[in-house]
């Protein structure tokens, strides 16, 4: 008996609901237009008791294509621009969290935030310079760096501008509100290993990291972080970095704001003070209500969001649903996630799915029955330091609404009596 074609459309996940007309995109523009309310005559012809044609003929041959791509039925699972921007090279695009499962972000769906577009770099023509307060200024090829002892680690990356302090609408999806968030297995060499190779001088306290993009994007990294768990990364999820993620080399600072994880890394300079770059003075600083700005706020604090069901989905059938979402902390492991279906009046402990790793996305799940009527879905994360993700009013009471970065407030989705789900502004 021939093997079943690998291209058989799996009737799982979202489309399993959709095939029964159970869930629709509330906002077709936001979530795509692939959704179909009712099964077409053609697809009815392929369900029991009928035998579908893909069981009566050979499927596509191997290597079609040589580098595999998602099923065409998944064409709406794509990154989308976060906002209308004045250029498309200094811009960002968001991961479709509402369509993803587990904790890993496929490489083609990793969020983007570029300041001068994506450079096309020939790895043989790329170098990493390590200099400043070192005994031996060194230059490395990518092949040099790949000869060092390597490590692979799973970590989330989140832009510190992820989630809005103000300005969302009822139609905002989780892709828009939280999509500057991704999680990959990163492979590279510990930065501490490379710094030891250059011979760090004892008075070095900061490391300038500089990218080879047209912004020459640069950030100062405290030496404690550089020597702790910082990585020079050349691979993500098993393959070499994607151009959008810094090919052929990027810095990864687990748990730190995305901007510091400099892509297309070309230079590391050790110094005895921060370098006061544009990205750590006029940007990526947090303006407080009194007019002062917090500088060097690196850690992404614990946060969580329900990805299913979330803004734009439409519940139709009553009965069982599994609430599911993501939790993460730049300070370590997630220890607990609580979910409320009544706007925060009552909380239930969600089940955390293994693996639960430090500075990594953790998937949480909670069984739920929707019997019609309104509900207000919230989640809050607690990390191993005991930190509890704050409610928005508590966060705003301290920081106001003009700090732009580091918004980790609890997200609420409103389920209307008819099952339509919207963002609570």
């Amino acid at each position, binding site marked *: 008996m021939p093997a079943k074609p690998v291209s058989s459309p799996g009737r799982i996940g979202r489309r399993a609901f959709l095939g029964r007309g159970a869930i629709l995109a509330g906002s077709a523009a936001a979530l795509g237009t692939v959704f179909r309310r009712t099964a077409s005559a053609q697809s009815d012809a392929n369900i029991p008791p009928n035998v579908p044609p893909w069981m009566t003929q050979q499927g596509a041959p191997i290597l079609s294509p040589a580098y595999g791509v998602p099923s065409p039925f998944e064409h709406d699972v794509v990154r989308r621009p976060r906002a209308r921007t004045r*250029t498309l090279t*200094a811009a960002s695009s968001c991961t479709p969290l509402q369509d993803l499962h587990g904790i890993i972000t496929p490489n083609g769906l990793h969020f983007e935030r570029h*300041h*001068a577009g994506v450079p096309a770099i020939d790895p043989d023509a790329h*170098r990493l*310079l*390590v*200099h400043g307060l070192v*005994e*031996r*200024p*060194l*230059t490395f*090829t990518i092949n040099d760096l790949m*000869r*060092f002892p390597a490590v692979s680690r799973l970590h989330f990356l989140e832009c510190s501008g992820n989630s809005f302090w103000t300005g969302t609408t009822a139609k905002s999806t989780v892709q828009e509100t939280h999509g500057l968030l991704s999680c990959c297995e990163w492979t590279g060499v510990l930065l501490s*290993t490379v710094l*030891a*190779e*250059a*011979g*760090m*001088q*004892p008075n070095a306290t900061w490391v*300038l990291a*500089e990218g080879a993009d*047209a*912004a*020459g*994007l*640069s950030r100062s990294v405290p030496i404690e972080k550089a020597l702790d768990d910082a990585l020079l990364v050349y691979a993500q999820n098993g393959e070499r970095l994607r151009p959008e993620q810094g090919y052929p080399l990027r810095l990864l600072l687990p748990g730190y704001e995305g901007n510091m994880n400099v892509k297309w890394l*070309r230079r590391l*300079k050790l*110094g005895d*003070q921060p*370098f*006061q*770059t*544009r990205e750590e*003075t*006029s940007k990526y600083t947090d*303006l407080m209500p*009194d*007019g*002062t*700005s*917090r*500088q*060097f*706020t*690196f*850690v992404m*604090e614990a946060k969580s969001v329900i990805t299913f069901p979330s803004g734009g989905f439409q519940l139709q059938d009553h009965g069982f649903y599994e609430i599911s979402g993501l939790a993460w902390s730049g300070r370590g492991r997630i220890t607990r996630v609580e979910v409320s279906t009544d706007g925060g009046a009552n909380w239930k402990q969600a089940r955390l799915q293994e693996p639960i790793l430090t500075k990594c996305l953790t998937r949480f799940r909670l069984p739920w029955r929707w019997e019609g009527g309104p509900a207000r879905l919230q989640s809050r994360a607690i990390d191993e330091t005991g930190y*509890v993700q*704050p*409610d928005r009013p*508590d966060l705003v*009471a*301290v920081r106001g609404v003009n700090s732009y970065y*580091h918004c980790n407030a609890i997200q609420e989705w409103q389920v209307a009596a008819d099952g339509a789900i919207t963002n609570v502004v």
Partner: protein
Amino acid sequence: MWSRGPAALILAVLAVAPACLRAQDAPPYGLGRSATPAELAGWDIDVRADGQGLPPGSGSVRDGLKVYAERCAVCHGDKGEGNPMDRLVGGTGTLASANPVRTVGSFWPYPTTLFDYIRRAMPFNAPESLAADQIYAVCAYLLYLNQIVAAEAVLDAETLPKVQMPNRNGFTSPDPRPDVPRPGSR
């Protein structure tokens, strides 16, 4: 063998630790090669707040007006008022208001950052195309538009770091977080 454990461990630590800590020792892996002064000179473009890294050259407000008009105004407006890209002028006194306006004049703490950023990233359509004199001149013109330097100012590696920015003391560190009371503790 167990009785030898602690002694062996101490010996191992004595043998390994200095190799890790003493920078003058041989590199552990011998990978990469020495970077030459010429290689470093071409890529070492950062400018620190104390002026380290500023190149020779100078520029005046008058020269800056010309460079700005030709290379910058199309994005930032004739007088730095912004549109379509970032506003560069004004906003002083707004940071504590409901609608803060963050510009070079109202927000940026260091004049050297201006030089560093223009040198590496501007103009947007041709980064790293301005000569040092042109960058000093554009810095001078923008600081003049923000009423931070006089119309006759000429900036160079000596004078630029000494320019006092209005929001120089507007930044706080270290990070005070966690800063939000836990739920129910209010």
